[in-house]
């Protein structure tokens, strides 16, 4: 799974996916500003290496359980930005017919078991997916994305223990962006490391530079290999940073603009990868420019589709509760 094994096209695809996630999120932020998105949204700008790197080493039929900050995970798993925008605009052609919105977006056909409005809600579900994989004797795996804050829920610890005793193919991928809403990990995280918690359960706990897509790939890749070969779960802690507020409109009194700028300047996952690709002569300036243009077009088309899409009929609210009435 190391860089050497990645072909040029793979590298460029990774880069393009990261651009796509960012462009999606930036556009979502814009639409929110324009009051076109109801409710509230949590953007993952700054965390693209984690979502894209992780999903690039798993298969289409592997499972992903996501979080409230799940747009990037969805796109990285292969979701269609058209239907994603339609969902977060509350339209009937959205992934969940307008019933879920940003915080409850899902595509079960992609093995995407859902974003989640409840922090820590995904852990036990991923354990269940892992158990089902084991019972069905397939070689799938389950990934559960979670934030640094979610690592303090009891569900995290219960899930780790159960996944470990049964050696389930579950990978706990933490996106440690240093904050849970307003709360810094320097205050809330005993022991200082999420990967370090693996040790209590006798499983590997890896820490990755979550702003380096190739490192994320390599480390998640190791955990995937382990999970697929029946050796059980791992924690991967991707150390990263979110650029935007916890939600759009967050006053962010808990951190300084300088702190944010520092990350943008020095560790931006897209800039870091772009420089690397250019230095390795995999990407030229003009190719990068074209890629950005293509991505912008995909996003523009998606937004156009979503804005034109029909609203649900009010009575549709009564559908989908049960398989049979």
């Amino acid at each position, binding site marked *: 799974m190391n860089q050497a094994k990645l072909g040029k096209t793979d590298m460029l695809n990774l880069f393009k996916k990261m651009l796509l996630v960012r462009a999606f999120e930036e556009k979502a932020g814009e639409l929110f500003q324009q009051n076109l998105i109801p409710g509230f949204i949590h953007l993952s700008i700054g965390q693209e290496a984690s979502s894209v790197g992780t999903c690039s080493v798993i298969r289409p039929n592997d499972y992903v359980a996501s979080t409230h900050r799940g747009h990037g995970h969805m796109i990285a798993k292969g979701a269609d930005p058209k239907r994603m925008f339609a969902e977060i605009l*509350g339209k009937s052609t959205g992934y969940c017919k*307008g019933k879920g919105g940003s*915080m409850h977006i899902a595509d079960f056909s992609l093995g995407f078991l859902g974003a989640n409005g409840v922090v820590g809600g995904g852990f036990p579900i991923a354990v269940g997916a892992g158990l089902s994989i084991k019972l069905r004797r397939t070689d799938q795996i389950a990934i559960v994305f979670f934030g640094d*804050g979610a690592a303090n829920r009891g569900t995290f610890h219960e899930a780790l223990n159960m996944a470990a005793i049964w050696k389930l193919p579950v990978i706990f991928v933490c996106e440690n962006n240093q904050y849970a*809403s307003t709360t810094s990990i320097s205050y809330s*995280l005993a022991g200082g490391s999420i990967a370090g918690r693996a040790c209590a359960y006798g499983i590997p706990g890896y820490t990755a530079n979550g702003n380096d897509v190739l490192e994320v790939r390599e480390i998640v890749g190791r955990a995937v290999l382990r999970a697929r070969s029946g050796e059980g779960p791992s924690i991967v802690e991707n150390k990263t940073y979110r650029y935007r507020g916890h939600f759009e409109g967050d006053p962010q009194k808990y951190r300084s603009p300088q702190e944010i700028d520092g990350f943008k300047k020095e560790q931006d996952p897209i800039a870091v990868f772009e420089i690397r690709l250019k230095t390795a002569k995999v990407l030229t300036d003009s190719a990068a420019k074209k890629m950005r243009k293509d991505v912008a077009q995909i996003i523009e088309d998606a937004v156009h589709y979503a804005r034109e899409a029909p609203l649900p009929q009010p009575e549709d609210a009564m559908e989908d*509760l049960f398989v049979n009435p």
Partner: protein
Amino acid sequence: MTERLLSCSEAFAEALHEEMKRDDTVFIIGEDLRAHDGIFGQFKGLPSKYPERVIDTPISETCLVGAGLGAALTGMRPLVDLHFADFFTTAMDEIANQAAKIRYMFGGQARIPLVIWAPDGGGLSAAAHHSQCLEAWFVHTPGLKVVAPSEPADVKGLIKSAIREDNPVIFFQHKKLFAQKGPVPKEEYLIPLGKGDIKRKGRDITIITYSRMTYFALEAAKQLALKGIEVEVIDIRTLKPLDFEMIAESVKKTYHALVVHEACLTGGFGAEIAARIGEELFDDLDAPVTRIGAKDVPIPFSPLLENYVLPQVSDIVRGIKKVLNLG
């Protein structure tokens, strides 16, 4: 009494300032309280004034609710902030099996001065995990008192009483009412738990409601007043204990009752009120008691769908006409 206009959030914060000053065993515990004075700004000025008594926790509801209980059992008077009422699910054992039962199970040994403060309700396109009204779960659990006020003055008077209570109180506040303004007395006052309030007098029909639906009921009453129908609106304010006396007195005068809440209809608290009216006031009724509540589905995201699911003023108007047989 002098009054000024305050929002529900301002009235709430003022109450906490008064209670924390009065009693230094009162403290607040929950997530993200300090940086922004609570995620809704509901604790304005308190974190800086009481650095040690406004306590941020990790995302660990099971433990922070349970810790509130433990502190209450051992001499403190905590107000637990639950962020969103939807997260009750993550601490149900601490509430329903522990807080609600400890005094009784142990033969009356313990006092439990614990308030769990929970912002609830829909109308914000916040979808299924951030929009629920869950009060029925708690009224169905002996050992808990349950409060769900509407007006700012009631919020203030009731939260002060809840803090001084020696029993566990589940205190709901509707998110859509945080900015709702109303007159609040300048002098200190308390409103006892278990007392309703008649928000509008009328002779033709009694609406029994609470929380945000009080405002919806008042709007419906206003519309029908133009047609000569006089609706009495009772805001019960406290669900448990329930001021059934006030309800009975009103129904004996109007002979008609409509119960309205935002929570979904089936198994909602409206069923309890309707049943009691049926059992105890059957002879006073000119028509069956009717209930209005949300449709029996989770709260959907898209505003159109959400509005369809949640009760609207027009539903209440229709309900009144139905009870009064006005076609």
